[in-house]
């Protein structure tokens, strides 16, 4: 084999209990699991015994990146953080959070493919990684500080270029609903308190090395440019949201919102986003503005520019500058984030005086980002805010809080949609203060348990979008019918899979989508138009399998599953085709380990199977179908009374979904009755030892 590229070849292991710092050979030990979540699951499987709790010193947390992190492959900025999940209810199981920013690339330039953290320090520490020099440093002066302050102080020590992943007060106080965050706005949710439980305040990385491309550099350049040509806007939306002179189609729900007259107005002077014709690769960054996408046209006047991860041209973290909000609330003028982070503060409110996209909503976003991204609070894909609205308007908060605590909140402000209410609420979550703050910080499952609310109250309420095990849906039947439902049954937190929704929501007309679907999943019937669903078929199951495998593949290679896969493109001359093999082409050329897309999908399947095996082992049951892969009631009910498979409803039919699960398990080579993979399936993917272990525990079907 040619000299290996992509990987740096070393995994860093830090034992905080003993202070021992060691390295392992990536290729020797982890190559079959690529990196990212692959390394994470492998370490948890091998080293963290069943029954371990998230905050036990024996729990481990793995910051894993992959062979493409730090290269010029587009959208490679993501770090997978894998551990036993504190908000997974009723029993913590393995899961991963994913952060963008500069951390993944910087870790590679420092010479590492992953960092495994184990044990517990006896006082607050931070981990300093400066190329080959790794040290456990005293963090007592940082303990109690927010993420911003922590990052600045660590940057002062190891350099302005450092990528610092830090926890805020929420993580220190062991709030399960906490994040670790790097590069100002890029967080991995749910894991902050695991770091807190280890007394680890932050990881500061500074790398001056390089990531080698194994293949020919001219070929690499060509491939990277080809990949760039297939990119759409954020979430791989490949058509613009308004008619454009170059565009055959447009779709009003697309995130490709650049257009003549839409300008980054807070840039000095303003910058026109223009028509962004897809062949003009020098204008990719203007296509997306997620502040304007979520907050409406009012956000353009505050837009400074797009920001985002290392090497990604999409810039989904929009930077907005709102001086009057800064003056009004005493917060910084500039805020930046995307999606859940951007909407963190706004999502707590049911109404605003000037509507959901008015100035007050923007104020709430600014205040929310300022507080949550410094205290380090997680939103659980918006479940925190949906829970809060339900608890308040359902009268449960009033019922549960004593009068003094209840009155300590300005509920009149809350009801009016006054963002200053967030200053009362968010710090109390981070500091575990009072009945309400404490309950909200637990995560939905444990919060319901503590307050004696049956989970069923949540699973039946469509507005809550709650799915199971303490977590919400993440692109389910509202985006991809049965395929979305299947995907949402598979994980121990919200599914975080975008492979399917990035296709169904790409903005192309259904006729074009069906033509592409036939090429990718064997039949145009693999997909339906959204909310015009047809009965289950095997192609939908194949699409679900493909979606899940590509998610794990992306999380292990360090490609962004918020952007990939790239099976559709904005290119009319290609019939809007993307390329199903782009991941394997990048992988092969970067690493020198040649694999076609089927072979690489097999590696992804190994990784996904290991996640399944871990879930089964730690749940202690093989009855996955009934105990794990569950579907909330709201999926089957339409408030307007429409029956499933009629136009205009996203609701599903119970029998049809039963069949969907049957077919899915079959496609996966899993037992239909239990939903557990068979011994043969494990063996086929090189997980024979896992099968033996599960067999000993009676956990094979």
């Amino acid at each position: 084999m040619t000299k290996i590229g992509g990987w740096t070849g070393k995994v860093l292991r830090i034992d905080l209990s003993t202070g021992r710092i060691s390295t392992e050979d990536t290729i020797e030990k982890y190559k079959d699991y690529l990196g990212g979540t692959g390394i994470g699951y492998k370490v948890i499987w091998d080293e963290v015994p069943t029954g371990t709790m998230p905050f036990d010193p024996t729990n481990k947390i793995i910051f894993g990146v992959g062979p493409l992190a730090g290269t010029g492959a587009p959208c490679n900025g993501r770090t997978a953080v894998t551990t036993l999940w504190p908000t997974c209810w009723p029993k913590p199981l393995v899961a991963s959070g994913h952060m963008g920013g500069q951390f993944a690339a910087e870790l590679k330039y420092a010479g590492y493919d992953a960092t495994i953290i184990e044990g517990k320090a006896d006082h607050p520490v931070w981990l300093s990684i400066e190329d080959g020099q790794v040290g456990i440093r005293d963090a007592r002066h940082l303990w109690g500080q927010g993420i911003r302050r922590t990052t600045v102080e660590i940057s002062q020590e190891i350099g302005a270029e450092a990528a610092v992943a830090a926890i805020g007060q929420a993580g220190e106080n062991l709030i399960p609903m906490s994040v670790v965050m790097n590069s100002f706005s890029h967080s991995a949710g749910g894991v902050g308190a695991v770091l807190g439980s280890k007394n680890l305040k932050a990881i500061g990385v500074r790398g001056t090395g390089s990531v080698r491309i194994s293949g020919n550099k001219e070929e690499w350049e060509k491939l990277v440019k080809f990949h760039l040509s297939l990119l759409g806007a954020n979430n791989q939306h490949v058509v613009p949201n308004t008619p454009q002179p170059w565009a055959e189609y447009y779709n009003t729900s697309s995130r490709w919102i650049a257009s003549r007259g839409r300008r980054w107005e807070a840039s000095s002077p303003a910058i026109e986003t223009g028509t962004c014709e897809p062949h003009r690769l020098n204008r990719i960054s203007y296509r997306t503005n997620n502040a304007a996408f979520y907050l409406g046209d009012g956000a353009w006047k505050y837009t400074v520019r797009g920001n985002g991860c290392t090497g990604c041209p999409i810039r989904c973290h929009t930077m907005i500058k709102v001086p009057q909000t800064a003056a009004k609330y005493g917060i910084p003028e500039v805020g930046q984030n995307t999606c859940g982070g951007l909407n963190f503060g706004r999502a707590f409110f049911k109404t605003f005086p000037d509507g959901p996209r008015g100035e007050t909503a923007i104020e709430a976003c600014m205040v929310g980002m300022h507080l949550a991204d410094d205290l380090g609070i997680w939103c659980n894909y918006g479940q925190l805010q949906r829970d809060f609205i339900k608890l308040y308007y359902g009268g449960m908060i009033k019922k549960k809080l004593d009068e003094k605590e209840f009155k300590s909140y300005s509920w009149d402000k809350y009801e009016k949609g006054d963002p200053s209410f967030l200053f009362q609420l968010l710090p109390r979550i981070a500091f575990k203060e009072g009945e309400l703050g404490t309950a909200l910080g637990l995560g939905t499952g444990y919060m319901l348990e503590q307050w004696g609310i049956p989970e069923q109250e949540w699973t039946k309420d469509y507005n809550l979008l709650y799915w199971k095990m303490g977590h919400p849906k993440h692109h389910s039947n509202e985006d991809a019918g049965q395929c979305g439902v299947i995907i949402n049954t598979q994980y121990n937190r919200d599914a975080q899979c975008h492979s399917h929704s990035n296709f169904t929501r790409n903005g192309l007309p259904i006729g074009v989508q069906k033509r592409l679907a036939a090429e990718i999943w064997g039949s145009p019937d693999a997909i339906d138009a959204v909310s015009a669903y047809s009965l289950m078929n095997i192609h939908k199951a194949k699409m679900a399998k493909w979606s899940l495998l590509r998610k794990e593949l992306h999380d292990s290679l360090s490609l962004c599953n918020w952007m990939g896969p790239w099976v559709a493109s904005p290119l009319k001359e290609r019939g809007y085709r993307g390329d199903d093999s782009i991941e394997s082409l990048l992988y092969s050329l970067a690493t020198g380990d040649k694999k076609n897309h089927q072979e690489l999908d097999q590696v992804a399947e190994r990784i996904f199977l290991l996640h399944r095996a871990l879930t089964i082992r730690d749940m202690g049951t093989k009855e996955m179908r009934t105990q794990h892969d569950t579907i909330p009631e709201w999926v089957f009910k339409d408030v307007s009374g429409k029956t499933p498979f009629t136009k205009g409803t996203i609701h599903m039919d119970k029998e049809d979904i039963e069949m969907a699960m049957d077919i899915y398990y079959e496609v996966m080579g899993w037992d239909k009755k239990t939903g557990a993979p068979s011994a043969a399936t494990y063996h086929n993917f090189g997980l024979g030892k896992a099968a033996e272990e599960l067999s000993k525990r009676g956990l094979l079907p």
Partner: protein
Amino acid sequence: MSQQSERDGMLEKALNLVGLNRSFSRRDFIKLSGVTVIGISALGALGAKSGKKMPLIIMDKAEGVVIADFTKCVGCRRCELACTEFNDGKASPTMARIKVNRNLNFGPKGVYAGQHGQGNWGNGLITPDFCKQCPHPVPCANACPNDAIVVQPPANARVVDPKKCTGCKMCQKACPWEMMSFDSDTNKATKCFLCNGKPKCVEACPAEALNYLAWRDLTEKVPPRVVPTALVSPEKAAACKQCHKK
């Protein structure tokens, strides 16, 4: 006291001044003993009468220059990656000949400017640093004791000739904008060579923040990052004097 030892003493003093001598081995020191410091040299035209080949002094102007529009830069660093991946086969921002990362978080003033500075942690402004392709006198080329920085057509970029470069890093101390890079795999200096007239960084920018334009003199317009602490060989200093007589 021979002229040589007097020169060594002077050099040692100069190195002490710029804090260089600590990291130099004795061997490096001896290797460097043939050079002197511009401004404090009082030795005259040493090489002029020796009949040796005249040292290289770049007089030609470059044809083009890469220019960055700070307000358009989105901080993605695709330029840094294109520079080293497509030219050197590795992703290595530290050796990229366009430099964004050092200003990315806190701006050119660094971390001490905190949230009131530039960059992602400040007002959002990103400053990509680029080579000015300096006119005569070209600081990096003049500082090179081996004449390894040469003019290369068609763009007349000032480029490092790896065959001549010994990796002494003197050029790094010469550039007021800290634009010299170093390839730690080959142990050679490297710098922007304008990709022979088709800069990869410009091509890679997804926000049209970089432009390749006809050369213009930016040396007076862009504030320096550091005070250069260049050492120029006596031969070169002598050659300078040929034209720059009082």
